[in-house]
Every structure is written in C-alpha cells, then in structure tokens.
C-alpha cells in the first residue's frame, strides 16, 4: 500500500499557505529583532536585564494556565452532558454554547463591566438581598479578568471535548458494563481515557488563546494585570519599537513551546499525534 506517499501530499496546501503567508513574514520581522539594522542582541539583553518583562511573561503564562484549567473543570461536565443527550436536546444546548461566540469580544468584555461595576447588576442584587453592606470591588481586579476570559473561551473547550466525546464508541462502554464494571469504573477507566484527545485539544486551544488576549485584561484588570500582549502592543503602536516587540514575541513563542513540551511529557502529546490505534 502506497499510503505513506499520498499522506504527505495532503499536507502540502496548508503547508504552502503557512510557509508563504506566515513563516516568511514572521522571519522578516524576527530578523528585525536581531538586525536593527546591523546584528545586535540589545533587545534580548534588555528583556533579560530589566525584570519587568520576565515578570509580565510569567504572569501571562500563569493566567493562561489558570484560565485553561478553569475552563476544563467547568467545560468537561457540560460536554459530557451534551454528548449524552439525544440530538434534539443536544442541539438546543449547543446553541446556548455557540451564541456567545457570535458576540464580539469587545461586547462581551463590556457586558462584564456593566455587570461587575460598583453600581453594576451583581452588586445591586447582592445589596438588595442584604448579603453585603456596601458594594464589592469586583471590577478592575484579576478575578474580573479571569471571569471574563473564561466566559469568552469556554466554547473553545466545550466544542472539541464534545466532538471527541460524541465519537466515543458506546459499545465499548456497554462492553465494560457487561463485564461487571460499575458506572464509576466505566467512566474512569474507559470513558475518561478515550476523551483525553479532546481534553488535550481543548486545553491547548484555550491556553494558547489566553496568551494572545489584550483587550479583555486591559478593560477588566487592575494595574497589576498586565499581560505580555499588552506590552507588545504598546511597543508597536505607541513606541514603534518593532525590533523590541518582535524580540518579546519570539521569547513568548519559545516559552510556550517549552511549556507544551513539558505538557507533552505528562500527557504524551506524541502518542496523540501519531495516532492511537485500538486493538
């Protein structure tokens, strides 16, 4: 079977697109970070010598991990429920999941400002119910940023999880049960492992998307909630330091790759990529 040859050809169109319209422009810009205009490492030295940049980078990675984690915890049960429903119910619930995606990020972020303000809806309700005696500061805090980002990114966790779960062969579960496994056991030892590709896909997706956010943290966060994309954006838009901005993003890219590599150790992305075969 000449399977191998054909498969690599399937890769060519997207490879072409990415190489010409992504890799080449990127290389040109990253080139700027090293050649400004002659070869120099000054941008990189600056990143490592002035602690604020690494601090912000670290924060960004932590926030992304938290957001992905919260999305996983909230999203897994919902996907599970969705996958278990007959098509009619399932589709209605899917609509509820998809609708937020149609709202622009700007608008969704803005609705949180309306909700969490000192005279916002949430405080109004809590005051009315006498649960608090004066308005809580919810807005312009890290909590608000996470609340906002999780809400925006949940669909990106639920949908991959859902499509993977839907594809899990029910017969395997029935087989396990007929062999004497209880519902909990069946879940833990058959369903859960089979859902892992979806978990990995969703987690990676949400994590990576979180790294690029800058509108939401800018509008909902406090002064310490600076994420690296915000810094890069300022460098480009206001200060016009393209070389430095490019250096910052190269560092971001590399640290993300390192994290994914570590993730790989534990979850075995390798195996997922090369394909799991059931016997």
């Amino acid at each position, binding site marked *: 079977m000449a*399977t*191998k040859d054909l498969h690599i050809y399937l890769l060519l169109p997207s490879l072409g697109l990415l190489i010409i319209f992504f890799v080449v422009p990127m290389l040109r*810009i990253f080139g700027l970070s090293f050649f400004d205009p002659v070869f120099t490492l000054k941008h990189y030295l600056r990143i490592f010598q002035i602690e604020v940049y690494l601090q912000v980078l670290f924060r960004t990675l932590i926030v992304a991990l938290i957001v992905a984690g919260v999305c996983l915890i909230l999203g897994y049960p919902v996907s599970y429920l969705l996958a278990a429903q007959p098509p009619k119910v399932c589709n209605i619930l899917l609509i509820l999941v998809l609708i937020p995606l149609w709202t622009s990020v700007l608008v969704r972020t803005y609705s949180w400002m309306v909700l969490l303000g000192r005279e916002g809806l949430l405080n109004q309700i809590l005051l009315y119910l006498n649960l608090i005696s004066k308005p809580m500061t919810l807005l312009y805090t890290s909590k608000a940023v996470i609340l906002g980002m999780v809400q925006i990114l949940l669909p990106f966790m639920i949908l991959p999880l859902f499509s993977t779960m839907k594809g899990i062969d029910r017969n395997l579960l029935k087989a396990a049960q007929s062999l004497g496994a209880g519902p909990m056991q069946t879940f833990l030892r058959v369903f859960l492992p089979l859902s892992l590709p979806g978990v990995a896909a969703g987690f990676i997706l949400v994590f990576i998307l979180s790294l690029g956010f800058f509108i939401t943290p800018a509008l909902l966060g406090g002064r310490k909630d600076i994420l690296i994309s915000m810094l890069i954006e300022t460098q480009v838009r206001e200060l016009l330091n393209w070389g430095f901005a490019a250096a910052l993003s190269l560092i971001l890219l590399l640290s993300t790759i390192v994290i994914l590599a570590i993730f790989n150790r534990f979850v075995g992305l390798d195996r997922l990529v090369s394909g799991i*075969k059931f016997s």
Partner: protein
Amino acid sequence: MINKVFLSSRLNSFRSTLLWVFSGIVLFYMAIPLFIILPISFSSSSYMEFPPRSFSIQWYSKYFSDPSWTRPTLLSFQLGIVTMLFATILGTLAALAMIRGKFPGKRSFQILFLSPMIVPVIIISIATYNFFAKLKLIENFWGLVLGHSVVAVPFVFINVSAALMNFDITLEKAAYSLGANRLQAFLKVTFPLIRPGILTGALFAFIVSFDELIITMFISGTRHTLPVRMWMDLWLEIDPTIAAVSSFLMLLSIAAILSAEWIRRRAEQRYA
C-alpha cells in the same frame, strides 16, 4: 445511549441532577452577555446603562440605515464564509496527513500548525502588512482571506485531529476489504464519522474570521469589516449601536442553527 449506561441506578439519578444543575449554571454564565446586551440594545439613553430606564428601537434603525455599518457587516459575512471553506479544506487535509501519515519531522509540523495561534496577533499583523504591501495585497478581498486563513487553519487542524484520533481505522480497512477504493472508503466511512470534528473546525474558522480585529485593521485598507467598525466606535464613544449590532448577530446565529437543524431533520425523514 450513554444515559442508560451511566445513569441506571437511583444513585445515578442524583448524579444526573447534579450534572444538569452544574451544566445549567455554566451555560447561564456563558450566556450572561446576552441578557445584558439585549436589553441595552433597546435602551433609549445614549450611553450604555443597565438596566435601561426606557426603551426604544433607535439603535436598530441606526444600524440598518447606516451604510457605514451595513457594508462592513456584509463584508464580514462574505469573508467569513470564504475563509471557512478555504481553511476547513486545508486544515482537514493537514489533519489527515498528520494523523495517518508516517513521515519524519511530524512534531515540527505540529508546532508549525499551532504557531499562528501562539504568536501575538499584533506581530502577525505588522509582519503580514509589511509583506502584503510589497505584494500589493492590501485592501484586497483575497488578501484578507489569506490573512484570516492563516489564523483559522490551526483551529480546524486541532478539531479534525481530535476527531480522527478517536476514529477506528479498522472500519476503513473493513471497507477496503469489501472492495471500496480509497476515496469511496473515505467518503462513505471515515468522513461521516469525523464530520462533527470537521464541522466544529469549520465553525471555529468562520468565527475566527468574523471576529478578527487586529490583522484586519492593518490589511483591510478603506473597506472595514464589522469588528474594525465596532472597535472604532468603542474606542471613541460607547454607544448602544454596538449592542444592537451584537443582538442582531446573536439572533441571526440562532436562526441559522435552527434552520440548519430543520433541514437536517427533513432530510433524515425523507431518506431514512
């Protein structure tokens, strides 16, 4: 049905209720903007306040009668659909190649396919702008499609890969042994089973394109897409027209999903 498998004892009906309640809360949380934006879009006051004191449909009439809003809306839809088709085909092919194929350097390819999502959009934007300017692809519909596809393909790739990973290859092999050729086996066995993954990927591709702001700001020239138009408004003046636009889009998506559902059901009834 999973229901019967998991929720067959009395203890499990407790778990089932818990699951429903939890999911209900999460779904409500996801839908919160809807409950806020929709009322605001009907507000009669000129700045965003909640809850609105009195109601009017002025923001909707403003949206529909203003070409500086309707033209971007149309463009965003056109762009979204073409990008969706383009990115879905490319991404699905790539996923097939990565999951099924055996060739060296897979991990590098995987990183390559994920990298448009990792690199901050602002950097992609200026890099793309610089490059496109040289190629005279600015303010060009196909330039926009290419720019959007670069960021949309990874989404398709991830979703289709996940679907493919759970696909049992023996099913396809069985088809071969029954005399089907490769294409037939793919279309009739593999494709229907991985379809949820492909459709999810396609949907993400559309949404990524439709909601794309930063790259578009650079390469769209004088013809704005909807997010660019909204951003301009939001930066200078927060005015409920944005709420009307968003509510309209939400209603549109509900209508689209419901009608797709209706078509599917009718087809199933007819050909079952």
